[in-house]
């Protein structure tokens, strides 16, 4: 076959900044995702810190009401869309191909595109702080507070556009990982042998693929209302603000499972590894994950118990929501079954994983308390909810993400983090976290509404708000220690070797950091936890444990080459998106973005995919 003449040669930067910009290596993209998302997590954390300082005492005036409203809206949006989701995506990128025994994801360039588009969306959201005010209607942006009449500035528009761009990034990534997991498993890696993290990623991506179009449509409708005077949520023309709530939560509830399922996957990897036991009830855990994902579609109105849906819908949603505790309980109990009788080694990842189980259970139980609509009538929109969300999101998702960072740190960097600092970090975080968020339960039950920028001294909320703020400061110290540990160890930690934890899954069978091609030879899988089983087999047969030590490099492995185009398409989206916020001259700016994007899409699809085919033939 002829190789097409293509005007622009593919980039070939072995190192340096251009290497990172044009890379389509899933491991590097994973690192990019991780670092970017962590920085964004800090920005969300600083927003939270400001809120907490304002609320530390009654009647304080440190930030104004307007700023406070922007702070919590940006905080929620940032943490959910710019921190946890991309941090999970970082693990998808780095870990999934390694766990299933693949050389890369199914669409390496699409993968780079996802990352750059995510970055574009993040920048769009964050620059709105500096363009006349960020969005201020809460992360779920209830109509009609988001209408032009109520909210004439550009904050809401930035929020809409940013979420749309982030949606494109998430969807592209999810299609990619679905195909990767279905289609790039090593020989013998049947579905019931998939590592649990891969399973949960698979389920999460199905959820993303189905949930994001819903928010896309809701945001389109909102945008049309704001920009073209349409009537979707316009009460005066018969529109119903409750429709926005339904559309948002049809997306929003699956979204919270999108946040927690990867975390559950991470924990399901770490607990067996450090207990030296296989996961207890693997099929049950997988099935429970699938059931949670499926039932996640039937519960959304539990966010709307006070909306006045009528007693029958409220009863239905109460019962479906309560039912979700059952599959989740299956997971929790099976994790405990995994540890039971194990030989537990309390390395930092393990501490965080156990912390996850402990803290997530608290958040889950408070979730069940809201699920009973009668008691939720007193809890809805109070700090009791704020406590719930932080127990499941911080005590759940973030704990698991920290566990995952520590766990895979040696694999990613080839170096060991400092165990002492790791432990200190864990305990400070644990104490700070509980101090910060447990008292919020009390505040909520004492009637403190959420989203208030101030409160009166006579309300009896002073003490616990003060404690909560103090807890956050401790928490922040913990996070600083974490950063210190990571940065220091990355630069000069001890060398880790390929398999520091006596790992179970395939990523531990290769050197750390993994070579560009991952596996010199695509492994054939005979067992669940194949690497662990292989080691034990070999020990039994007296063969020295191989692997994890680096092997010969001179394989004729052809890897996909870097490309400029994913970045250029993302730039097109960025410009196009900004143009939607400022519809000057019939969307002239957007047209520029669309033009750049279109040219780049064509260039992308004509770009020769990679190596000449002779090489490929030879490889087989």
């Amino acid at each position: 076959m002829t190789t097409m003449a293509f005007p622009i040669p593919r980039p070939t930067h072995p190192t340096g900044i251009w290497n990172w910009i044009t890379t389509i290596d899933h491991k590097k993209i994973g690192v990019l995702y991780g670092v970017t998302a962590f920085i964004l997590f800090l920005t969300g954390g600083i927003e939270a810190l400001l809120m907490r300082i304002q609320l530390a005492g009654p009647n304080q005036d440190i930030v104004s009401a307007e700023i406070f409203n922007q702070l919590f809206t940006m905080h929620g949006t940032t943490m959910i869309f710019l921190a946890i989701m991309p941090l999970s995506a970082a693990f998808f990128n780095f870990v999934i191909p390694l766990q299933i025994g693949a050389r890369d994801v199914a669409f390496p360039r699409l993968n780079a595109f996802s990352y750059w588009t995510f970055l574009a969306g993040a920048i769009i959201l964050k620059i709105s702080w500096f363009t006349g005010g960020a969005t201020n209607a809460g992360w779920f942006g209830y109509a009609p507070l988001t209408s032009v009449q109520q909210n004439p500035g550009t904050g809401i528009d930035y929020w809409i556009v940013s979420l749309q761009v982030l949606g494109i990034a998430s969807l592209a990534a999810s299609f990619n990982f679905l195909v990767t997991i279905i289609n790039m498993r090593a020989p013998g890696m049947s579905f019931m042998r998939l590592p649990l993290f891969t399973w949960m990623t698979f389920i999460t991506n199905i959820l993303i693929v189905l949930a994001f179009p819903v928010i896309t449509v809701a945001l389109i409708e909102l945008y049309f209302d704001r920009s073209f005077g349409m009537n979707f949520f316009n009460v005066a023309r018969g529109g119903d603000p409750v429709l926005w709530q339904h559309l948002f939560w049809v997306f929003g509830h699956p979204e919270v499972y999108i946040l927690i399922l990867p975390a559950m996957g991470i924990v399901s990897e770490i607990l067996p590894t450090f207990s030296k036991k296989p996961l207890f009830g693997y099929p049950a855990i997988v099935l429970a994950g699938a059931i949670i994902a499926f039932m996640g579609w039937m519960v959304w109105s539990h966010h709307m118990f006070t909306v006045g849906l009528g007693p029958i819908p409220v009863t239905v949603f109460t019962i479906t929501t309560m039912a979700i505790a059952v599959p989740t309980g299956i997971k929790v109990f099976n994790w405990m079954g995994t540890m039971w009788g194990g030989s537990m080694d309390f390395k930092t990842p393990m501490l965080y994983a156990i912390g996850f189980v402990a803290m997530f259970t608290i958040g889950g139980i408070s979730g069940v308390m809201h699920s009973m609509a009668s008691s939720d009538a007193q809890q809805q929109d109070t700090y009791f909810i704020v406590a719930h969300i932080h127990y499941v999101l911080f005590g759940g998702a973030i704990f698991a993400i920290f566990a995952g960072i520590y766990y895979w740190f040696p694999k990613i960097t080839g170096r060991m983090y400092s165990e002492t600092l790791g432990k200190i970090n864990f305990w400070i975080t644990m104490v700070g976290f509980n101090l910060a968020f447990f008292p919020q339960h009390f505040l909520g039950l004492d009637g403190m509404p959420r989203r208030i920028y101030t409160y009166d001294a006579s309300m009896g909320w002073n003490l616990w708000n003060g404690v909560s703020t103090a807890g956050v400061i401790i928490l922040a110290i913990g996070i600083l220690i974490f950063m210190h540990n990571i940065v220091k160890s990355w630069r000069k930690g001890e060398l880790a070797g390929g398999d520091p934890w006596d790992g179970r899954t395939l990523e531990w069978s290769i050197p750390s950091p993994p070579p560009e091609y991952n596996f010199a030879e695509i492994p054939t899988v005979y067992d669940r936890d194949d690497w662990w089983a292989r080691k034990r087999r070999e020990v039994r047969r007296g063969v020295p444990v191989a692997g994890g030590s680096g092997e010969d490099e001179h394989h004729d492995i052809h890897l996909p080459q870097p490309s400029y185009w994913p970045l250029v398409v993302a730039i097109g989206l960025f410009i196009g998106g900004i143009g939607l916020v400022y519809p000057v001259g019939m969307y002239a700016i957007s047209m520029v973005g669309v033009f750049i994007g279109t040219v780049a899409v064509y260039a992308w699809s004509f770009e020769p995919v990679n190596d000449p085919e002779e090489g490929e033939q030879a490889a087989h």
Partner: protein
Amino acid sequence: MSQEHQVAEEHAEAEVHTGHPTPLTYFKVAITLSVLTALEFGLFYLEWLSYGIIPVMGFLSAAKFLLVAMFYMHLRYDNVGISIFGRDVPIFSLMFVAGLIVAAGVVFALMALFAFFTGGA
């Protein structure tokens, strides 16, 4: 392009094995689709059908939907199963039908919540 090239080749082969439809089949399907559309159009003007029109039209459009999906989109033919929990799940159908079922569920649930069926508001 090589990888895809190969796949395509394998694929064409596979289609031969599974008895891919001929243009004649496609043509027959097209005729059926036209007839069904004509039927819809005709039935539409039968006023005595009253509310009966809803199930009838629903059925006809579902039939059209299935014909296109099965034959034109080849769901009948190339739809390899993967084994999950010991069951063979045809993967393309799974992907599409998952979207379809959830979408239909959401549409109906929202209609019920907004009292569409009970004639409220």
